[in-house]
């Protein structure tokens, strides 16, 4: 075994990787030469002010948008060719909360199994077991039969996190999942993420302004302002005098401080 092979074996697998990614909407450049990598077992937060390109970067990483230049790899493959979608769990920023037709928490979470087992296949016992685990891990087992629109904002968000968990993802991508939710939901949220990382070795990429709940658990914080202006341990960011639990409107200020 060569030295590079030994090194490769010791290094956790890269789950998602952006190299020199730029993106423009027409003439407006939104992302500039962005490098970002999340490995298995890593908990990475992506922060930046409104309009910094976070949502665009997520869409590029997940393959919804093609970069103007640079490349993206999902589990080593270009997103357009990546077929094993169950490996990616996704919690969108604004899920449908004002659903026309009532849907129970369990129905929403069960949808999370579709990518894993094939959307056309009937449910198996294993699927029900995983849905049960996912519900329990976010503390919603007792509310499984309740319509989603009767739940609080924080509980609804946990249901969408459980939907992502139900697919047993190796990479979890969350877009502003805890904005404005209560302290109990934030605690549950933190517990379920650390469980996924520690027990299942999954990688997590969290886009959020509200990092105070998970600040102690983060491996890295990445600050985006069209380009990456900081990528390092949370402690290093904190040592720069910048609080992690900042308000969105404060972000430009502390980004100035980061230089």
């Amino acid at each position: 075994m060569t030295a590079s092979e030994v090194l490769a074996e010791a290094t956790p697998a890269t789950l998602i990787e952006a190299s020199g990614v730029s993106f423009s909407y027409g003439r407006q450049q939104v992302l500039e030469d962005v490098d970002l990598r999340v490995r298995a077992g890593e908990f990475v937060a992506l922060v930046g002010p409104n309009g910094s390109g976070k949502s665009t970067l997520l869409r590029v990483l997940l393959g919804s948008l093609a970069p103007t230049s640079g490349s993206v790899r999902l589990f080593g493959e270009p997103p357009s060719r990546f077929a094993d979608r169950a490996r990616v769990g996704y919690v969108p920023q604004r899920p449908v909360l004002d659903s026309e037709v009532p849907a129970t928490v369990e129905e929403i979470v069960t949808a999370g199994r579709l990518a894993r087992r094939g959307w056309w296949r009937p449910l198996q016992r294993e699927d029900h077991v995983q849905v049960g685990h996912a519900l329990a891990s976010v503390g919603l087992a007792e509310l499984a039969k309740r319509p989603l629109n009767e739940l609080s904002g924080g509980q609804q968000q946990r249901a969408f996190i459980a939907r992502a968990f139900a697919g047993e993802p190796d990479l979890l991508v969350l877009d502003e999942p805890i904005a404005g939710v209560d302290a109990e939901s934030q605690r549950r949220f933190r517990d379920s993420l650390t469980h996924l990382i520690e027990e299942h070795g999954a990688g997590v990429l969290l886009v959020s302004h509200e990092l105070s709940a998970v600040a102690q658990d983060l491996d890295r914080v990445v600050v985006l302002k069209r380009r990456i202006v900081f990528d390092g341990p949370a402690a290093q960011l904190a040592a720069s005098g910048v609080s992690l639990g900042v308000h969105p409107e404060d972000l430009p200020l502390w980004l100035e401080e980061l230089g």
Partner: protein
Amino acid sequence: MPWPIDALPYPFELGFMQRALVAGVVVGVFAPMIGTFVVQKRMSLIGDGIGHLAFAGVGAGLVAGVSPIWAALVVAIAGALGIEWLRSRRSASGDLALALFFYSGIAAGVVLVSLAGGFGASILTFLFGQPLTVNDQEIATIVGLGAVIVAAMLALRRGLFAVVTDEDWSRVAGLPVGLLNTVLAVIVAASVVAAMRIVGLLLVAAIMVLPVASGQLLARSFRGTLWWSVAIGVASVIAGLAASRLWGLAPGGTIVLIAAGVFVVVALVKRATIPKLQAEGAGL
């Protein structure tokens, strides 16, 4: 089929009423079933838009001398695919896409029907429905299309649920969003055509959507809404046919009015009981 079947009582003891009952009940099952997904997708009016297009198909069939039902099916499916294509490309909003097809469809229908010799009684049966005159061949068409629609809905329900509830998430999860939306559009088109002889093209969207409006008030789950909607759809058809026989009313319109009446009653009862339910909920 030898009509009438002896076992059925008044007002369904006559052959023409029994044929209407069979065709109507089939429509009462599949139309609200697909309507549940359409309402969740916030495209409640798609049935109306496709109904207008199907009218152009009826006209084209009459001009070309082919079966108006099959011509309507072809045009309705083509139109449904067009609406879905416009919606998915976001080159027109869902509403605007529907409006484009609505008016083009009805205008083309009017021109084609006038070319074919004008608005006779047979045209009115397509526009306003006339279940009391369905023949065995039409029943076979309705039952056949209905069976395909129900089988497709049951087979695809989980994927369709995910897509109509959260399209962005479904795309990231690798579900074939485009395919499922297209299949849904085709099923809606097939439903419109299969239901048009019963409630008419102008009211076909009503039998898809009104039972769902009641069902979503009564149920506390998507699955529950679907089955409540089917139950209300079937009940509205049976009650509507019976009322039309008893009082000599237009059956298509009567069925829809009953479905609308059920919604009013359910909404009022729900409104009256919500404070009570909330009080109980607070005590939990």
